[in-house]
């Protein structure tokens, strides 16, 4: 499958967002094309999570337009917004598994909430399928508190895959994981892109993840995108903000 450069599934124009006095995003433009994985790099607190929460309408921008799959996110009513969100998978930074439910119930949740007339058998099959996709079939009856950080991340991703989304949003999928587990997650992200021909926005400060999963890399700093292009293009620069990010990443890793 390939990237369709004529078809932007997400497009942000001049997006601004402040919390009180603090301006987090100061005019962000971004297009994500069909079948493309875009990596957003940026330091902690630079507004990466805010950016993808704006894409699904969890936060509203103060200024600018957000179009996702052809819909202007800010102007949808509740029903239309739900409809749109069912086509977007959001893998949260903190996994966000429901503590009170076991893995099975967690995975069923988006399915039964979005499609009310499925049979028990269809639900069970869908759950088994996504668990198999992330390689965690044995955890089906466990509670989230019994899972490791990496397992939680993968279940979180499985929970979003169950609706076969057109767009995946990953908020720091590899943060806090060991290199081997990180690599498994990276593989998973690429596999999802291949299998469903979906697009993705991947937020990370992990450069290995960025290089491995990103068709294109953009760098967020001080509320704007300061670089974009392929991984090598982005880091082939004299801009100290970019170089610091690169050096810091590999020095602390070593």
């Amino acid at each position, binding site marked *: 499958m390939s990237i369709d450069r004529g078809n932007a599934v997400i497009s942000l124009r001049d997006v601004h967002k402040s919390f009180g006095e603090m301006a987090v995003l100061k005019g962000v433009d971004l297009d994500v094309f069909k079948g493309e994985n875009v990596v957003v790099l940026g330091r902690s607190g630079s507004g990466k999570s805010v950016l993808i929460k704006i894409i699904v309408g969890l936060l509203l921008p103060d200024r600018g337009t957000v179009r996702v799959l052809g819909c202007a996110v800010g102007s949808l009513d509740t029903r239309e917004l739900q409809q749109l969100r069912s086509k977007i998978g959001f893998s949260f930074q903190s996994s966000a598994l*429901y503590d009170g439910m076991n893995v099975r119930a967690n995975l069923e*949740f988006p399915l039964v909430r979005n499609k009310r007339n499925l049979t028990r058998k269809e639900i069970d099959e869908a759950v088994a399928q996504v668990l198999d996709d992330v390689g965690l079939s044995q955890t089906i009856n466990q509670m989230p508190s019994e899972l490791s950080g990496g397992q939680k991340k993968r279940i979180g991703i499985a929970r979003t895959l169950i609706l076969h989304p057109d767009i995946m949003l990953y908020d720091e999928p590899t943060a806090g994981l060991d290199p081997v587990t990180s690599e498994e997650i990276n593989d998973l992200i690429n596999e999802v892109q291949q299998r469903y021909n979906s697009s993705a926005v991947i937020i990370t400060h992990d450069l290995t993840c960025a290089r491995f999963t990103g068709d294109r890399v953009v760098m967020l700093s001080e509320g704007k995108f300061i670089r974009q292009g392929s991984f090598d293009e982005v880091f082939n620069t004299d801009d100290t903000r970019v170089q610091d990010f690169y050096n810091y990443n590999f020095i602390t890793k070593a």
Partner: protein
Amino acid sequence: MKAFLLRMYDIYEFLLRFYKEAFLPPYEYKEIINQFFDVGIRSLSIISLTGFITGMVFTKQSRSSLAEFGATSWLPSLMAIAIIRALAPLVTALIVAGKVGSHIGAELGSMKVTEQIEAMEVSSTNPFKFLIVSRVLATTCMVPILAAYMGLVAMLGAYVNVHFNEETSFTTFFQAAFVRITFIDIAVLVLKSAVYGFTIGFTGCFNGYYADHGTVGVGRAANTSVVISMFLIFVEEMLIVQLVHSYLH
């Protein structure tokens, strides 16, 4: 001062939203039922135990003063009045505030800081209806039931004490006990317990839903929920007793 006023405004908004979401469909029946059971099961054993002890101890303490007038035969009806009008609703509410209120505060607080509430929102679920309306309804309806239940258990405790001292039979005790209890007493018990229940659920949900980021926020949400709801329960008790006395007795 400004922070306080802003807080009051948040509470007002939360209350308004609660009424809107509670009465407009769709209703989350399944989750509401779950919460009913959760509240009930969570507090049943401790309420049974506390109720029984309260009834027994209060009877024991009251006996000596009544004995001075040779009026120990009034014990059953006096205990019934004390328990139904005051003790059962108040003690039940305080226990539920400690047990369920703190749980709601901590649970919603941690759901907030670990993005579970946002995860629900992107899964076609209105977290306000699913989490908050169901919990507030559950405490509002369950506290009256639990209070009535505690009333009965406490009367049983009182009976045990009376039986061992005066050898009163079960039927004699309960006949004597309930002559002074009117329908109004029961209605007031149910109504004021519902007010306490609402207070507990609402306070827990509000504090949890507005928990600050980080794990400190979760602990604080649980703690604040208990302290504030207990305080409010006492204030409400005072107001309700005033009201009932000036209009009904």
